[in-house]
């Protein structure tokens, strides 16, 4: 599935890969994900959530 071209609903800007911080079970980490360069709104696609995100969650739960 090709990455969808999303625009920020508030600012109207195209999203750009930028750093996003995450927290789970006391672990804090970051990764690049599509984000509005102005307001910072994030987009995580279903593909990403079911793939890499789920993997990382599983790893942290097993620690």
């Amino acid at each position, binding site marked *: 599935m090709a990455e969808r071209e*999303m625009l920020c609903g508030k600012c109207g800007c195209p999203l750009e890969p930028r750093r996003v*911080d*995450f*927290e789970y079970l006391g672990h804090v980490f970051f990764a690049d994900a599509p*984000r509005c360069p102005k307001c*910072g709104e994030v987009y995580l696609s279903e593909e990403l*959530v079911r793939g890499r995100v789920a993997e990382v*969650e599983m790893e942290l*739960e097993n*620690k």
Partner: protein
Amino acid sequence: MASFKEQLEALCMQNDPPPCAAECPFGLDVRAFVAHLKRGAFAAAYRMYRDATAFPGIVSRVCPHPCEGACVFAQRNGAISLRELERAAAAHTPNPRPNRYNLPKRKERIAVVGAGPSGLACALRLASKKYAVTVYERGARRGGSLRGLLPDEALDAELDMQFMHETVEFRYETEVRDLSELDAEAIYLATGRGGDAFGMTLSGTGACASGREGVFLGGGLVGRDPVAAIADGLTAARAVERYLKTGGRNEPFRDGSTRFHPDPALLPAPAPAVAPGEGGYTPEQAVAEAQRCRECRCDACVTYCDLMRSNQKYPSRLEEEVTTTIEPVSLSRKARLATRLIAACDHCGLCKAVCPAGIDTGAFLLESQRKMQELGAMPWAFHEFWLRDLEFANGEAWLCLSPSETKTPRYLFFPGCRLSGSSPELVERSFDALRTVAPDSAVLLGCCGAGASWAGRTELHEAVLERLRAAWRSLGEPTPVFACMSCRREFARYLPEMASVSLYEVLDEGFPVPKRGAGETVSVFDPCSSRDWPDAQRAVRSLAEKAGWRLEPLRMEGKYARCCGWGGHVALSNPGYASDVTKSRAGEGDAPYLAYCANCRDVFASAGKRAAHILELLFSAPDWERKAPTASESRDNRRALKRRLQERFTPGEVTPMEEPKIRLSIAPELLTKLDRDHLLREDAEAAVLRCEESGRFLRDPETDSRAGHAQVGNATVWVEYRAAGEGFELLNAYAHRMRIVEGHDNG
């Protein structure tokens, strides 16, 4: 109370030998010996047998084989014939000769007094370790009490062969009169029955030890028969070696006891014993006889508990891993390796039911859950979905209602949240039926607290129990009537002041059952929570038969009922495992399952197994293929049930319906997808609402659809939707557990 570890140390029989090995004078590892024979490895079997007995050619002929009397099949198609198997190992090994070991000579000298079975065994074993051994024998030849038990040629041939690589000085026709004559660091007295003990007796401080340093005694001298004398000689060799190396005289006594006695009822009947020909078993016959052996070990837990079986871990191993997970040996969180394992227990109680020592590994895992929660070390995602359901059941869906005039109803019907969510109409019909038996019955819609208990959330669990207790007291302490056996088990465990009964017992006694079936065959699937309630199990069978169904028993039912896969809410932490358990249960019977737990029925329905609830048989035509409700539908059903009961019995107190804050239409297939991810319709509504209210969303310029996320509980829910009519249409939804740290733009 003893810790679980102490309980295991005191009671677990995992390492106890089977009765055959316990009875063996040599403590032969019978299971390993037989396992070699099963695969036709005669050389390996023989080597093992020779190491254990020193003189396989003698022992296999003269041993009385107490192992056979102890065999679990002794009274059932015949004991495994170890005598013949031992002979076959010796007969069919490609090379019966002993191994030659090239070890350095040891300088210590050992004197063995007596060349009978015990002295010979001791001498052979020590000589093979290259000690300087001298055997003093009063007579002119070796053999002692073995002479006459087997032909001289056979005896001499075996002795010659076993001693062929060893250097032992035999001094025949040499009578030892005083031990001071012997120039040796250690002495073994094996002068036989009635022989000279030189004033020595067994001191009891260690195997074969006398009261004098360096002097050991055993065999016929201390009353052993010839076979036990050989075993004594081998023990004495160990005792002598320990003494020479450490100066100690404390060689452990052989513990020939076992607490483990296999239950023949749990073992399939063996094939009939294989009869040997004149020359003993042929190799094929020996393999066939070995294959009758079940290699008994105490392994009911790891055989029947899904968690222990799938992880191949005995309770002792679980205990170690769980304990180091709760109290990691390192300061790093990395040591919490068994977190998911702890959450994988379905709390069915089968481990305790099948354990001959009654060890309750499930209780240990539940206690471990509590400790992990206290430490904040259990991932929230392993339980949150069901804890939110508990909140709903005891919040929006809670109802305590007593329709009759009396302030003290006789019965309090507690249908349980799962049945109310799956078949609200059956709850209503059951309540009506109960009221025909006892018109003053009341009803309580709520959750028993199992989810909080399974999650190890002690405080929340206490609060649920307190609320249930208060409701019960406010009605004058009626007898709770349970449709769900899990609720009943939870009440019995945590609210023991309430004497309860199952709905099925009440209906079986007082309700006229319409006959709807025509003798079709079904299997009653006892929920694991019914294990301790045989009266309820009988009542369900009686109701089903009265209703016209023929019952086909399942192998594991009644006391040994197994979990359907739902217990412990394991699907959240271990989805693949829970689904495997359900599939395995569904395959245990060919006939459709008749459940009396709504969870069992629903998980089987979801796995494609034909299943119905017993109440369907009583109150309607059962639909064996009815789909399980989604979690969202379950909530709707419970809301509707509450309203319906209020409308019927307390029309003035009907809770007004809450209007959803947003109109969101969801296609049925999408709702099913949400359900698989443990997402509710209201979670999607909350996310769309958050996007629309905050104006924070993303827009796909091609389709004009929107996407965004919201925190619902601890989860992050993503929605894709578009405007439709006066509201919105959901296009997709998914969720993740990690939280996006908002308002932090490192651009």
